[in-house]
C-alpha cells in the first residue's frame, strides 16, 4: 500500500533522511520510531506529498507521490505534529472546509452527513460549534484526526498523534487508531516505545535519517529485555555493591543515588536472565531492608545510544531485514 524506496531528503548540506526503504502492507499499522530529529517528520512529509524527496521514490496506493500528487493525496489522510486548525473556525466549519477541498463532488447534505459521522467517530461532536482556537489539546488532536479521515483515505499518516496528551487521552487515541486499522493502512510516528508495542504490528526504527531496525514489537521488546537493568533500594548506608555483585547472573552494579536512610543501585544482569529473586535474597540475607526492587525500562534514547554509538560499523551495516535485531542483541551484550 505504501512503498518507500531509497528515500533521501536533504536541506542544503544537512541530510535529514538518508536512503530509507520500507513497505507497509494493506491494513497494517506501522510504527515509526525514533528520537526527535531522526527524520520521522521529514519522511512523513514526503509520503504525504507536502514536499518532494531529494532522491528516491514513494508510492501510495500505486501512485507515485511526486508524479501523481493529486491521486496520491486523494488516498492519504495526514495528521501533522501540530494539527493544522484555523483558530477562528468552529469544528464543524473547519471539517466542512476540509471536506470541500478533499472530496471532489458531494452534495451539501452528503457533506454534512460525512462531517457529522467523522465528528462522532473521533468523539468531537460535542464541540461541533466551538472555535478550534478554544479547544483543549486533546480535542485539537482529535479534530486534526477527523480532518485526516474526512475523505475516507486508504492510507493514514499520523505524526506523533499522542504527543502532549494526558494519559487518559493517550489511551483513547490509541484505541481510536487501533479501531481504524484494517479499513486503513496506517503509519504512526512516536518516540515512546510502549506505544508502539500496544498499537503497531510492525516497527521501523530510524535514527539520524537511517533505518536501524525493522521488526515486530514483540521481537523488539524481547531483544531489549536482554539488556534489562534493575533498580534496587537498600536500607542503611553500608556499601552493598560488593554483595550485590556476588549474586549469580549479575554483571555490573552501579550506585545511582545516596540518601541518609538508604542507597540506590542499578544492577545490570546477563541477557535473558531474571535475577530479581536472587538479588532480593542477597539483600534480605545480609539483614538490610529491601525498600524497592523494579526493572528499569530502557528509554528509547538509551537504545539508540546502544544501537548507534557503541559500534558504529555494525549499526551502519545493519541491513533492513530481520538481521537488524541481532544488532540490538550484540550491542546489549557489549553492554
Amino acid at each position, binding site marked *: 500500500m505504501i512503498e518507500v524506496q531509497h528515500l533521501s531528503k536533504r536541506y542544503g548540506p544537512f541530510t535529514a533522511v538518508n536512503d530509507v526503504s520500507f513497505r507497509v502492507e494493506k491494513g497494517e499499522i506501522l510504527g515509526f520510531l525514533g528520537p526527535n530529529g531522526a527524520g520521522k517528520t521529514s519522511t512523513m512529509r514526503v509520503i*504525504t*506529498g507536502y514536499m518532494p524527496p531529494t532522491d528516491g521514490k514513494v508510492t501510495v496506493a500505486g501512485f507515485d507521490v511526486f508524479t501523481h500528487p493529486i*491521486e496520491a493525496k486523494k488516498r492519504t489522510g495526514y495528521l*501533522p505534529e501540530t494539527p*493544522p486548525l484555523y483558530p*477562528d473556525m468552529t469544528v464543524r466549519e473547519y471539517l466542512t*472546509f476540509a471536506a*470541500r477541498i478533499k472530496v471532489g463532488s458531494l452534495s451539501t447534505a452528503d457533506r454534512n452527513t460525512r462531517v457529522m459521522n467523522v465528528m462522532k467517530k473521533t468523539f468531537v461532536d460535542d464541540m461541533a460549534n466551538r472555535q478550534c482556537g478554544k479547544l483543549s489539546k486533546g480535542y485539537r488532536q482529535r479534530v486534526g484526526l477527523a480532518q485526516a479521515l474526512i475523505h475516507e483515505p486508504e492510507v493514514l499518516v499520523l505524526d506523533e498523534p499522542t504527543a502532549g496528551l494526558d494519559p487518559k487521552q493517550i489511551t483513547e487515541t490509541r484505541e481510536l487508531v487501533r479501531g481504524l486499522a484494517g479499513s486503513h493502512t496506517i503509519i504512526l510516528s512516536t518516540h515512546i516505545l510502549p506505544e508502539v508495542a500496544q498499537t503497531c504490528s510492525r516497527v521501523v526504527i530510524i535514527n539520524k535519517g537511517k533505518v536501524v531496525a525493522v521488526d515486530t514489537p514483540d521481537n523488539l521488546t524481547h531483544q531489549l529485555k536482554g539488556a534489562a537493568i534493575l533498580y534496587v533500594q537498600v536500607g542503611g548506608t553500608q556499601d552493598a555493591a560488593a554483595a550485590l555483585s556476588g549474586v549469580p547472573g549479575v554483571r555490573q552494579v552501579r550506585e545511582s543515588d545516596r540518601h541518609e536512610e538508604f542507597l540506590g543501585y542499578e544492577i545490570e544482569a546477563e541477557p535473558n536472565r531474571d535475577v530479581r529473586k536472587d538479588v532480593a535474597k542477597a539483600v534480605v540475607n545480609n539483614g538490610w531492608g529491601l525498600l524497592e526492587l523494579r526493572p528499569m525500562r530502557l528509554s528509547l534514547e538509551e537504545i539508540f545510544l546502544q544501537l548507534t554509538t557503541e559500534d558504529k560499523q555494525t549499526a551502519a551495516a545493519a541491513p533492513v531485514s530481520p538481521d537488524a535485531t541481532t544488532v540490538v542483541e550484540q550491542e546489549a551484550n557489549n553492554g
Partner: protein
Amino acid sequence: MAESLRNIRAIAGKELRAYYSSPVAWVLMGLFAALFGYFFIVYLDSFVRESMGGQFGQAPPTVNVNMSMIRPLLGNASILILFVLPMVTMRTYAEEKKSGTIELLLTSPLKDGEIILGKFAGAMAMYLGILGVTLLYMSVLFIWGNPSWQMVLSGYLGLILLGAGFVATGLFISTLTSNQMVAGTASFVIFLLLWIISWFGESAGPTIGSILRYLSITEHFDDFGKGVIDTKHLVFYISFVAFGLFLATKSVDSDRWRG
C-alpha cells in the same frame, strides 16, 4: 476544470470568511469609508462654491460634476488603496505558513495554482467590499446631480484592475515569508515604488523615462479616471496580475522544495 473551480471557490470562501470573522475587514472598510468621505466632502464643498460662483457670473461656467468631483475622487481612491491593500494581502499566505495550516492545504488534493487563485479571489472579494462602500457616496451624486455613467464605470473598472495588480503582488510577497508584518511592510514599499516610479520617469531620459512610466502601475490608471477604456491599459493590468499570480504559484512550489 469543474473540480478546479470548486476548489478555488472553497478556498476563496474560506478566505473571505476569515476576513469577516476578525475585526480586520470592518476596520479596513471603516477606515476607507472615513477617508473617502473626507475627500468627498472637501471636493463637494469646493464644487458647490464653484458652481455658486458660476451662477453669479463671476467664474466661467465650466464646472461640471465629472471633472470636479468624480475624477479627483477616484484619483484619491487609487492612492488610498495603496495603503489599505497591504493590510488585506499580508496575511493571505504568511499566516498559513506561521500557523502550520499550510500543511492542510499542501497535503490536500489541490494544485498550487488553485490555492493561489482561491486566495486571490478571496482577497479581491474583500477589496470589492471595501470599494463597495464608496458607492454610497457616488449614489449621492447620482441622486442630486447628473454625472456621466461612462466615467464612473470606467473609473471603477480602473480601480478594480489597479487593485487586482496590487493584490496579486501582495499575495506573491506574502508567500515569501511567514511573518505578516514583514509581508505587509514589504508590500507597502513595493506598491509605493510601483506608484512613484513614474516620477523618476520625469527626470530620466526619454527612452528610460517612457519605460519607467510604463511600469508605473498608477500611470495606467489615469485614462480610466478620465472615462477612457484603452486596451493597452487593460493588457497591462491583466498581464501584471497574471505575472504576480504566476510568481506566487512558483513561490509556493519552490517553498516546498526548500522544505
